[in-house]
């Protein structure tokens, strides 16, 4: 029987704050290899299909960018929330509402065309996401209702609302009864960046701009400082005159707007119409992206690309090996687990101690105990 003992480090380990995502990734690979072996697939073949083949050609990199864009956009917003110790986990719902608000123009006013359409749609998307995020923020500030549960419940409501829209009032009358809206007109489709090379659209640029902007805010501006102070010590923040309720609204509206932008970009760029399901769980996967990126916007860009690859890899193993594409979700979940576990190394040293041996006297323990002290 082994016991794990944590020894607090005098200060956080710079080494491990850099290394921990990589250790986590390596551990995920090992666990994933075991999983593939259990499924009766040669792990090396599976890894090749999962992680290498989906990004071996230029057009595939465009697909990666399409998947990474919403993840990064949502995750940078969430990182601000989580830094402030405010838990918005309803980004999936805000994503959907952004998509719905943004789609008002192409669905209800298809005759409206021109260069203004896209900017207006994006703006409405952000408004929609922010509006939907303001509900849990309002309930938290006004009634101190737990924001984790309310924001999550609203995801289900948003999914059902979208389902009703595309089956009911917004259904394409010429769509042969399929639950979908009309195809967006040309001026409502987010342009592709390099149409000759692949499908990637402006969404990835939005994501990169948002990441840099939030990074500047968090590291160079007073607002970012406020977020960090309130997150690590609400009391100190109060003494400094930073309003907690204002912060709740700020973080929720910001992350909601970014999730909404991701939603409308996805619908306008990658899908081209509203459907009952418009997201393979981007809003939840973005939580993993935020943590894998260490809640740092620049780290989140890298993490977003990694998680986007897990989606592509999941599709690849499904078609090549006949394994369920749910394998992507498993990879994502394992990755988050290992990231959180490895982050412990930043603040603590870990000792594994044999239960029986700790009771022996000191010298025997020094000589014989399988005491593994990980990297001081």
């Amino acid at each position, binding site marked *: 029987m082994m016991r794990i003992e944590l020894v607090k480090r005098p200060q956080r380990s710079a080494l491990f704050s850099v290394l921990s995502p990589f250790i986590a990734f390596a551990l995920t690979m090992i666990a994933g290899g075991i999983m593939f072996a259990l499924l009766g697939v040669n792990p090396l073949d599976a890894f090749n299909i999962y992680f290498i083949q989906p990004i071996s050609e230029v057009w595939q990199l465009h697909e990666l960018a399409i998947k990474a864009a919403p993840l990064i956009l949502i995750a940078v917003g969430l990182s601000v929330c989580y830094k402030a110790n405010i838990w918005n986990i309803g980004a999936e719902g805000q994503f959907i509402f952004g998509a719905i608000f943004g789609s008002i123009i192409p669905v209800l006013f298809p005759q409206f065309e021109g260069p203004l359409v896209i900017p207006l749609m994006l703006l409405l998307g952000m408004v929609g996401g922010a509006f939907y995020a303001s509900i849990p923020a309002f309930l938290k500030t006004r009634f101190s209702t737990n924001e984790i549960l309310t924001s999550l419940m609203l995801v289900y409501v948003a999914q059902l609302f979208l389902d009703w829209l595309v089956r009911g009032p917004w259904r394409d009358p010429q769509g042969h009864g399929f639950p979908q809206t009309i195809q967006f007109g040309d001026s409502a489709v987010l342009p592709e960046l390099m149409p000759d090379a692949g499908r990637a659209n402006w969404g990835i640029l939005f994501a990169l701009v948002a990441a840099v902007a939030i990074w500047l805010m968090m590291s160079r501006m007073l607002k970012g400082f406020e977020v960090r102070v309130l997150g690590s010590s609400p009391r100190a923040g109060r003494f400094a005159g930073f309003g907690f309720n204002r912060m709740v609204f700020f973080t929720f509206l910001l992350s909601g707007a970014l999730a909404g932008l991701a939603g409308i970009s996805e619908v306008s760029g990658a899908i081209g119409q509203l459907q009952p399901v418009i997201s393979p769980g981007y809003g939840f996967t973005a939580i993993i992206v935020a943590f894998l990126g260490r809640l740092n916007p620049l780290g989140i860009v890298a993490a977003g690309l990694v998680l986007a690859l897990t989606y592509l890899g999941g599709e690849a193993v499904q078609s090549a090996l006949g394994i369920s594409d749910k394998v992507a979700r498993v990879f994502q*979940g394992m990755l988050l687990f290992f990231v959180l576990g490895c982050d412990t190394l930043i603040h603590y040293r870990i000792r594994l101690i044999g239960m029986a041996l700790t009771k022996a006297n000191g010298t025997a323990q020094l000589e014989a105990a399988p005491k593994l002290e990980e990297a001081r």
Partner: protein
Amino acid sequence: MDITVNILLTIATAATPLLIAAIGELVVERSGVLNLGVEGMMIMGAVGGFGAGYLTGSPWIGLLAAIIVGALFSLLFAVMTLSLATNQVATGLSLTLLGLGLSGMIGTSFVGQPGVRLPNLDIPGLSSIPVVGRLIFGQDPVFYISIALTAAVMWFLFRTRTGLTLRSIGDSHTSAHALGIKVIRYRYLAVIFGGACAGLAGGHLSLVYTPQWVENMSAGRGWIALALVVFASWRPWRVLAGAYIFGAVWIGQLHAQAFGIPVPSQFLSSLPYLATIVVLVLISRNKRLTMMNTPASLGQPFVPDR
């Protein structure tokens, strides 16, 4: 009369998984740990229960498997948050995400397969008493487990010394540790108990409620169970009341859909989730009640010093 009895029976069936999962989480939270992985543990229990029942043909083995799978899955959370002192909110979330993915992968081959159903209790004579017969003597076995579990947890938390110790840990792990109480050990056991309960609740879904495997079949029930604990301000009998209210809402909207009430079905389907929000608002606006009952060290990581 028959319709009323039938509706009451379906409400009980809908309330049972909520009750079991919430009672388990209540014990976990009373020990000061916030496990947001209920949804994940529940869905793992559902797939494990269905799988074991389907492969062996015995719903009882299925139920047992559901409990074991839930407990084992919660162990993952326990090691992370208790031994490695990770953030409980993030770890719980990842448990849910992992559970939803893993269950989907495991369950691929179960989709569309006929499941086995746990038979209802049938006591000759007693079960055929009009009205109360079926309500009291003719329900599924898990229903009785859920009621017994609630009573047992009430007794344990408020009438035993160990229960008192558990609550004291939840209120101040530092003081409890200073008194020589094994905080981490208690919490491990509490988390595993919560996992077993969530697994059992999942097993009820796939072995009684709808004896088949459908991806994401827990449909947010784990989250509603979490909300129920807050709603109940950490008291078992209020969890019982809350679970039945939610069971009634859940069944009510299904019946409304069946009766063809001229409201889009999606709006009716969203009622349980909206009701959860409303109920949370109502309970949390009463700050005194919430503050008084919330375990004081809920969600805070604890690292024993030597």
